[in-house]
């Protein structure tokens, strides 16, 4: 039932090599090489040529190189690179361990990237939208499982599992579409991103409950409602307690990490703590990813969050494609072919569940039909969390290969279908009904400089003056240049387009923004006067002109 569990799986490598780990390690390194290359190539191809998120290509690459297809072919002198074991889990524990580490890192980063302030400020509309989507998604998953005979009753772990996978939402995929259309700050954008975070948080908690239910009900008998309720309550209590402790002590942990002196060391220590909490959470019967996510969430409020993220992001860029690729390797195409009809129905039902489940509450909260559809479609792509949930489902024995294939297929198809539809829906007017007030007022300072060069120069100076005032400045994007500047609860966005510099912030902090920019402009005046004396390069010495020709 639990092929990956610690004691059930002795170190296969050591056994295979008869004590000498060399050949086994060589195979492992070759496997990783093929996975890395295939994942990157697949991701790049789908991004470049199909204009789809890289995850699609990474998953498909995994299916292709996996033990069921190319990986099962014999290579001269080596045998099959990814041999399919006679029974049990299709890949080795080492590969699955790397994937697990990647998923924990990914969830830790997702937690770090959660903007708690934004979360709380907009949790009204966001949580209604998120919860509406959750209820219908859970129903959609359970319903599909029952209709296609994959489960005997609604509380069957397989049915609950499909429901959980269906609940997940991607933050990154709609975020990219919204950013491309400059709609991140729009009421729909904020609602989608908050709703997606809420879906993921509850998705992770629900997954924890389902795993616990599956472990309790291994006899195949339905778990009594009372026990189920008890387990759910336990999961929620642990989750709430950890969240409260985390949020309260987050800044203290942040200060302690800062005291380490080096941001790289702080990042490793933070990840270490995340893994520690993950292990602790698993030991009380909940899913590990919950622990990693919670620690990230706790630290998301500290002002050094961007600095810890940078080195970890580097690691994630290498490991996360490996995770998606390994998820693809777990798919048996023959099994997938067998459930293609059920999978397509599941995808359609999943799309409908989010569009209706999220769109309807949005409509009640003052959005018009266009806005409600945007929000529903924005919540539709099931991203990383669905795939992580699918992997945990398969490795813990909750889901069989059929159910796993359906889950991954649905996650993949929603990622392919929803973003272009969302992009199309974002064209056009306001998504709010008439007379509904927009979100918290923001202030904008726009400066039109005489030249793009000067604007770029001033952009650097503005960042410096914020750094001098002990703010953290972090680049969100290189082209066009966008920076986020934060300290405590203050957040500023600094952007450059052509010769125009825009500084935006909540109205409450406008006075600080104005004062900073004013002081910098005044010191620039001095610089301009000094620069005026530069007209004759020869006067500087250094004989710049002399030896040119």
């Amino acid at each position, binding site marked *: 039932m639990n092929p990956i569990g610690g004691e059930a799986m002795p170190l296969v490598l050591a056994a295979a090599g008869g004590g000498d780990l060399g050949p086994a390690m060589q195979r492992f390194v070759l496997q990783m090489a093929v996975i890395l290359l295939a994942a990157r190539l697949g991701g790049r191809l789908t991004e470049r040529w199909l204009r789809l998120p890289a995850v699609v290509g990474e998953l498909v690459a995994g299916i292709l190189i996996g033990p069921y297809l190319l990986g099962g072919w014999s290579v001269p002198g080596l045998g099959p690179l990814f041999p399919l074991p006679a029974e049990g889990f299709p890949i080795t524990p080492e590969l699955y361990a790397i994937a697990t580490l990647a998923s924990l890192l990914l969830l830790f980063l997702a937690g770090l990237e959660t903007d708690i302030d934004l979360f709380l400020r907009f949790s009204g509309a966001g949580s209604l939208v998120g919860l509406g989507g959750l209820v219908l998604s859970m129903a959609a998953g359970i319903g599909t499982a029952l209709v296609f005979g994959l489960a005997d009753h609604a509380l069957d772990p397989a049915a609950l599992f499909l429901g959980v996978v269906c609940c997940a939402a991607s933050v990154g995929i709609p975020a990219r579409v919204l950013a491309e259309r400059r709609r991140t700050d729009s009421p729909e954008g904020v609602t989608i991103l908050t709703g997606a975070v809420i879906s993921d948080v509850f998705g992770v908690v629900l997954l924890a409950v389902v795993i616990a239910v599956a472990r309790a009900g291994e006899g195949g008998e339905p778990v009594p409602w009372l026990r189920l309720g008890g387990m759910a309550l336990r999961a929620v209590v642990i989750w709430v307690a950890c969240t409260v402790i985390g949020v309260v002590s987050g800044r203290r942990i942040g200060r302690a990490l800062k005291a380490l002196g080096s941001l790289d060391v702080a990042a490793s220590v933070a990840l270490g703590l995340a893994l520690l909490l993950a292990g602790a959470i698993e030991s009380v019967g909940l899913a590990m990813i919950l622990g990693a996510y919670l620690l990230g969430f706790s630290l998301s409020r500290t002002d050094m969050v961007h600095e810890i993220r940078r080195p970890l992001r580097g690691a994630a860029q290498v490991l996360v494609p490996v995770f998606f690729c390994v998820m693809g390797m777990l798919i048996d195409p023959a099994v997938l072919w067998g459930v293609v009809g059920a999978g397509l129905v599941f995808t359609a039902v999943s799309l409908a569940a989010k569009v209706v489940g999220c769109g309807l509450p949005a409509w009640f909260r003052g959005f018009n039909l266009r806005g409600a559809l945007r929000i529903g479609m924005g919540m539709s792509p099931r991203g990383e969390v669905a795939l992580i949930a699918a992997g945990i489902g398969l490795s813990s024995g909750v889901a069989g290969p059929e159910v796993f294939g359906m889950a991954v297929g649905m996650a993949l198809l929603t990622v392919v279908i929803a973003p272009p539809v969302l992009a199309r829906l974002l064209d056009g007017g306001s998504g709010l009904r008439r007379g509904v007030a927009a979100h918290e007022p923001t202030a904008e300072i726009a400066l039109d400089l005489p030249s793009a060069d000067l604007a770029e120069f001033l952009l650097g100076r503005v960042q410096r003056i914020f750094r001098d*005032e002990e703010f953290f400045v972090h680049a969100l994007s290189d082209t066009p240049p966008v920076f986020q500047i934060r300290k405590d609860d203050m957040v500023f966005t600094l952007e450059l387009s052509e010769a125009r510099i825009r500084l935006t912030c909540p109205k409450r902090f406008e006075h600080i923004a104005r*004062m900073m920019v004013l002081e910098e402009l005044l010191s620039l005046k001095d610089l301009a006067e000094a620069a005026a004396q530069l007209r004759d390069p020869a006067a500087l010495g250094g004989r710049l002109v002399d030896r040119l020709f």
Partner: protein
Amino acid sequence: MDFTRVLTEETVSVALRAGEKPAAIEEMLDLVMAGGGVRDRAAALAALLDREARMSTGMQHGMALPHAKTDAVDHLRAAVGISPEGIPFDSLDGEPARILIMTLSPLNRTGPHIQFLAEIGRLLSSPAARARVLAARTPAELLAILREPAA
């Protein structure tokens, strides 16, 4: 941010005597000096006048925020002064300055210096807050009013 921590009864005044801008800046600088920590009065004054020369720090509604970065201090130093009669300060709206806030911040050290100035400015951005400050009769009273949480 608790900016009142850098203020003491020695560094606040409810009765500035100066009638003109340069004299007012000197009088405010003497208040800052009374709190200690300023090594070089001449250098600090030069920096303050230099900043005024670029653009007057006379804001609107009778507020003036003369400030400078200088090597003469190691930490943020500040003073708050009230002028009952008002001092012509080349302000944005032409009104004489009645509430003066001076800060000196170290040249090459990071810290919330401009932020400090901006926070005081915001605190005194409402007519009611300014009226309360102007009604203070003694340095102790002024300090107490500044320390009240922003209404």
